[in-house]
């Protein structure tokens, strides 16, 4: 876990992007040579509904400063209804995070279609600026979490 203190600190933001809309939109942003901050890392998933709230918790636990979940616009889901589940799940998760003292701005869900390259760029810039203003996520720094428990869970209780 890294502790960031210097003034040139850049947040580290994780973006889960669905393969059919947002990931395509992000590729299009590249194709159009749009520029946005370097601090966003995309993880490709088939559908935003694949994103388990556990992934988000894990990211915060490991020191990510922000998490974005992006998918197709409601009604346009490649798998017809997946993003409705996403929306409901993450509305709940946001409240849970807030309850745990994580600023809700650190976790956002956005709908970006395959053609909305500019929206992808703007979203990244905007979220990045917001999180930069919030400062590093120190919530779990020094907390005595036994990560191995989750690790084991994640490995499917192989022991």
């Amino acid at each position, binding site marked *: 876990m890294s502790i960031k203190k210097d003034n040139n600190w*850049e947040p580290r933001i994780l973006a889960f992007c669905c393969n059919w809309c947002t990931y395509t939109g992000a590729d299009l*942003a*590249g194709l159009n040579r749009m*520029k946005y901050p370097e601090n966003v890392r995309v993880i490709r998933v088939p559908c935003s509904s694949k994103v*388990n709230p556990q*992934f988000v918790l894990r990211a915060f636990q490991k020191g990510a400063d922000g998490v974005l979940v992006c998918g197709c616009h409601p009604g346009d889901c490649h798998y017809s209804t997946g993003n409705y*589940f996403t929306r409901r*799940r993450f509305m709940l998760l946001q409240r849970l995070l807030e309850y745990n003292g994580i600023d809700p701005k650190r976790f956002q869900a956005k709908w970006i279609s395959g053609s909305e390259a500019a929206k992808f*760029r703007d979203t990244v810039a905007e979220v990045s600026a917001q999180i930069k203003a919030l400062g590093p996520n120190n919530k779990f720094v020094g907390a005595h979490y036994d990560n191995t428990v989750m690790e084991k869970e994640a490995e499917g209780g192989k022991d």
Partner: protein
Amino acid sequence: MARIGVFICHCGTNIASVVDVEKVAQAAKSMPGVAFATDYKYMCSEPGQAMIKQAIEEHHLDRIVIGSCSPRMHELTFRKMLKATNVNPYMLEIANLREQCAWVHTDRAKATEKAINLVRMSVAKVGNNKPLHTSMIPITKKALVIGGGIAGIQAALDIADCGFDVTIVEKEPSIGGHMVMLDKTFPTMDCSACISTPKMVDAGAHPNITLKTYCEVESVSGYIGNFEVTIKEKTKFVNHDLCTGCGLCQTKCPTKVISEFNQGMSKRPAIYIPFAQAVPSKPVIDENACLKLTKDKCGICEKICPLGAINYKDEVRYTKEQFGAIVVATGYELADWKKMYPEYGGGRYEDVITGLQFERLVNASGPTEGHIVRPSDGKEPKDVVIVKCVGSRDPKKGKSYCSRACCMYSAKHAHQILDKIPGSRVYIFYMDVRTPGKGYEEFYDNTRRDGAQYIRGRVSKIYKEDDKLIVKGEDSLLGRPVTVEADMVILATAMEPAPKIEEVVQKLGISMDKDKWIQEAHPKLRPVETQSAGIFLCGTCQGPKDIPDTVAQASAAAAKVAAILCHDEMETSPMISSVDQTKCSGCGFCVPTCPYKAISLVEVPGRDGNRKVTKKVAQVNEGLCQGCGCCNAACRTGCIDLKGFTNDQILKEVDALCL
């Protein structure tokens, strides 16, 4: 221990000009599990691929990370390449260093740092990849078309012409649907029967087409390539193998009931061929009307049938058949305006008719031999009102959508009245006139030239005083209430999905929109597909449309079917969900999340301590699963997981990102 090979592509200068690719490759070497790392000008080129293959050999690599362009670009290329090596094609991850790094950043140091991070994430993920294998499923080279209207007929003919067997299931005694009821078709004023009956005959005579009239789909199981369909054949009480369609029975039958085909405006016998050009031209007995079947009297048809084709003891039959693909063409029905609009008389006035009733009235083979007369007294109407949007564009009483065909057929009706009845006047109450089609606006122009009066406003009330129907509307362009004393009123009623569409949709495992029209997979790019692979749609079951659009869609659906049936077998994607049944608690939470109904609960033997028990667990149908992973997040025990995107793999990516 994994032996990972990392290959960083320069993409000419596309990546290398912003990212220090050598530094990335260098950094990769120290990542856990990496046995080999290098960079190269063009990884996707022949020499690039050869280099990777060679590295696999030399360094005994068992999984590969390529840092290059987007996986959406070359993932398939590299998978294909791996097929020729010892490495499973799915033991591959691609770090997107071009579209999502080099092209969007300018700061070399930061971009390089990000690239290293991206590669680290891919390395972490690939370490948990498992070999996956595509499977091949054989394809039954036969299609099922549900519905024998113009959409179903056209789709069946096109598929059959490609050389595949087709079965049409039609619930009525004849194919033909609504089109054969119509008199003329806009905007060309072709005789509808003249252009649709030849197609019906073609369908009946085509060596590759089997007609199953008076039949319904009872159940559907299986998946693309191999649907198993049970077809229910309703009781015809006439053996069609013996019957020659001579029609003698029809003429002698003493019972007369309302004719569905003539929209209630004439009668037909209990044993009947619905209309003259029916295909097949063989009768069925209406069991609710037949004296023999209801009261055990009469029996004339049996006595006079020269071939002994009548069988009062007929029973419902079920047959099972395999199909490779299904086309849904269940069509529409007119909404029952009588329930929606008590202010239009709610059906009390005989001279307030629907557009479809008018089609029968004006049709030369209809109940009046084409004479437009009032149903109540047989007089020729002079003043006719046409009311558009009855049930359409009315979210409170009817449907919120526009039924699309009414503007044009109302113009056609106006034209026909003005043409056939000298001195007649036609008033058309409309909200908007919508004519987006080839030759449509011109047709509307001509109708106005014929003398049709278009009045912009919705009708509020229709009632009868003495001999006249009083129609009250507003001329909203004048801002003044207006009244027309009409002899006849034609309502352009809304189209709605065929009755029992819910059952069809449920049996097929496809979905409907809020108005019960069948949902297409994508409104623009996959307009004739449903989201269930192998099931296609065409015609008005998808939404209101006119004949040209219906026929175009039917041929499109046929092409999609042919594209499946032309293969002997098909490859399935291995990146689908699977259940670890030893961990599944059988809670069933995953079942409703699946848009494809691919998950079901099954009973399997299990153990409770020492006792043998059966327990319920989830099971994924591999033919139906499309690999979205929605069920994964719903699973409480984490036992259902998407291959290629397992929870484990993604968590490893997250961890690597946060390092």
